[in-house]
């Protein structure tokens, strides 16, 4: 050994370095392995990695302004937004030229929709102007400033021009600022008016409620997993079916069932009133609030907690508990000092699973969440399918992704990611 370390790299029989020789021998093997995973790799690339990359890209992408109004953007560069006055004729002429082209391509309304996210009213301003500009001729109808102001006096409003100028770069942090209740003001980033601040609250609430849901899953799931792991195989299988039973019904049905259970004229309230525990006119409010969301989501996510805990507990040899007891530990000490620490990897895996599923949930909060139980994902869904503000949705999603990664990193630091087992 010692002579090879001194005389440089080890050589194979034919004189090539052993490392290279080995690499060559392994290449075929690696290639074959790669071919085997290639379909999955391609699938993940197409359906997971690319969409995420696209989402991250959309959250900063803002070409639409410069693409639709190329001349105007250039002409606006010299204009001082703080002057308090509308830009001069050159800018209006550029706008007219751009709009004539845009109207032809029907892209001006799309731009209006985009800028309307930043300043209310621009949408109709562009739509209205588009109809008139269609009939103009760039060579003969100059000057344009008055003509635009005649269409709508908003064209004389420096705020409109400031918005166009602010959002003319091809990339913007505007969506991200919006995601954290800020906006691009005259002097850079500033807080949004208080009556529009919502996302920070929702992020905090999503985190808090997901933690509560994770915690209740641990509390409810641990004993079940323990029983499952310690029952004889036949009864364990039966109980396992009960645990998995919720998976056999649709998510919507389960959530709606909770509605029937928890509402004021629902089963639980009826029983409580019948038992005389609650007065008929003071029925408990258990749904359309945080409580209802936590109950329904805990129920839905419980199997994701029980399964990893169960599979970890199954590997814990019962002789550990016996050993602890033979050494003089009471049942509780034996559990707490010996069994519980060994089941922590299962709790960790279950918690990560449940927590990450919970912060991305939106169907259940939408149905039973009322106003105080909705999650950030509900807003993301709203911006994807209703307001069509995909840039904002992408920014919110990107923040959520970062938060998850940070939590994952923190978990790794505190508990250690190798301390997570699925069985």
């Amino acid at each position, binding site marked *: 050994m010692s002579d090879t370390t001194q005389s440089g790299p080890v050589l194979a029989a034919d004189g090539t370095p052993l490392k290279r020789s080995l690499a060559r021998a392994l290449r075929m093997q690696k290639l074959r392995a790669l071919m085997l995973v290639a379909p999955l790799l391609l699938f993940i690339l197409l359906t997971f990695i690319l969409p995420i990359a*696209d989402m991250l*890209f*959309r959250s900063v992408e803002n070409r639409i302004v410069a693409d639709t109004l190329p001349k105007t953007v250039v002409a606006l560069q010299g204009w001082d937004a703080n002057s308090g006055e509308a830009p001069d004729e050159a800018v209006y002429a550029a706008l007219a030229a751009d709009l004539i082209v845009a109207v032809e391509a029907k892209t001006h309304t799309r731009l209006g929709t985009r800028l309307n996210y930043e300043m209310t009213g621009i949408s109709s301003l562009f739509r209205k102007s588009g109809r008139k500009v269609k009939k103009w001729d760039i060579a003969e109808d100059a000057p344009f400033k008055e003509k635009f102001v005649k269409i709508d006096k908003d064209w004389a409003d420096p705020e409109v021009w400031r918005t166009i100028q602010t959002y003319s770069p091809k990339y913007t942090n505007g969506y991200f600022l919006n995601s954290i209740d800020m906006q691009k003001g005259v002097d850079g980033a500033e807080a949004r008016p208080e009556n*529009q601040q*919502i996302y920070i*609250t929702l992020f905090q609430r999503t985190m808090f409620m997901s933690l509560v849901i994770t915690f209740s899953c641990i509390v409810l799931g641990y004993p079940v997993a323990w029983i499952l792991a310690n029952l004889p195989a036949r009864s364990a299988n039966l109980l396992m079916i009960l645990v998995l039973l919720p998976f056999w019904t649709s998510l919507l049905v389960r959530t709606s069932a909770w509605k029937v259970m928890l509402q*004021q*004229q629902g089963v639980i309230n009826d029983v409580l009133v019948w038992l005389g525990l609650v007065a008929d006119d003071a029925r408990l409010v258990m749904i359309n609030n945080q409580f209802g969301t936590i109950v329904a989501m805990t129920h839905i996510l419980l199997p994701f907690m029980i399964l990893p805990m169960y599979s970890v507990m199954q590997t814990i040899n019962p002789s550990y508990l016996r050993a602890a007891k033979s050494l003089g530990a009471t049942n509780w000490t034996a559990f707490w000092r010996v069994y519980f620490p060994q089941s922590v990897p299962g709790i960790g895996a279950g918690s990560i699973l449940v927590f990450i599923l919970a912060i991305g949930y939106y169907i259940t909060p939408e149905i039973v969440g009322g106003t105080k139980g909705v999650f950030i994902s509900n807003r993301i869904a709203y911006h994807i*399918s209703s*307001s069509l503000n995909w840039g904002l949705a992408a920014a919110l999603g990107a923040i959520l992704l970062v938060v998850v990664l940070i939590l994952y990193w923190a978990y790794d630091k505190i508990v250690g990611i190798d301390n997570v087992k699925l069985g």
Partner: protein
Amino acid sequence: MKLTKLTALAASTALCAPMAFAEMANEMTIVSWGGAYSNSQMKAYHEPYAAKTGVKIINDESSAEAVAKLRAMNEAGNVTWDVVDVVAADAMRLCDEGLALEIDADTQLAAAPDGTPASEDFGELLVSDCFIPQIVYSTTFGYRTDMVGDTPPDDICDVFDLEAYPGKRALEKRPINNMEWALLCDGVAKDEVYDVLETEAGQEQALAKLDTIKDSVIWWSAGADTPQLLADGEVVMGSTYNGRLFSVIEEQKQPVAMLWDAQVFDLDGWIIPAGLSPERQARALDYIMFATDTQRLADQAKFISYGPARASSAPLVGKHADLGIDMAPHMPTDPNNAKNTSLFNYEFWADYRDDIDAKFQAWLAK
């Protein structure tokens, strides 16, 4: 950009995989809302059209996400839908984004039996260049007759009167309509509502009025919620689409009655997606020409209590196909019901939707 296209393609194939081969045969995919509404269209339009032409019609129930999905399909360059049923506001947005085909009413739609051109027959309901109106529906209130004592509510402001009508109310989880009703009941004249709502102070005022009943409101997001809440006795009154209330009252015989005051008309109709192949576009136009003629629109009212969008169809509205009851009194447009109505303000909400929605949601979360 290539990246975007690729992912959009992946996303849209994932979303619309079942329809990916629609173009192959002599068939077309028609998108609508599902439930009783789709059934009424199937009976009044699809079946006769299929019998007449032999085209196979595939139903898709994606209208709620139509705008988002059409945008995704368009980005991917693979539009799989032929005709899409959307509300007027969505039609306008699709038109704005260049995602819907512009229609010339007089040449591409059927004239009335008496020769009145389609543009006149539909009249002011042609709110967008891309939109072919089909029905008029209204968002209005229903209430539990057994929970309001001897004086049933007859005024929109009874919704805000917690003393006379204690109990929960169901309102839609969005600012549209709610803000207008709040202002109307806070002393703003009907013709000034949008002038007030344009201003910060007006928005504050509307939210302040809603604040007085906030604790008693269950917010809905699906049209089926309010009928269920009314049937369960969870709410004393609630807003929803009039057709939904009709089925609670007449089909399920629940103790529920209509409060037509201050109902807001809205339109639902067809658009044809932009970017179809000429062959598919011709087929879609042929279907639209057939399905929106005077008789067809009147036929639909046999199956659901929404008013036909053509003036010429109104006299032809008959009895419900199964229940045998006269449908005219259940139409939101019936003179007895339409004493105090307004039409959805598309222009206003196109501009203010994002802004007011942000404030509304922030207020809700408080």
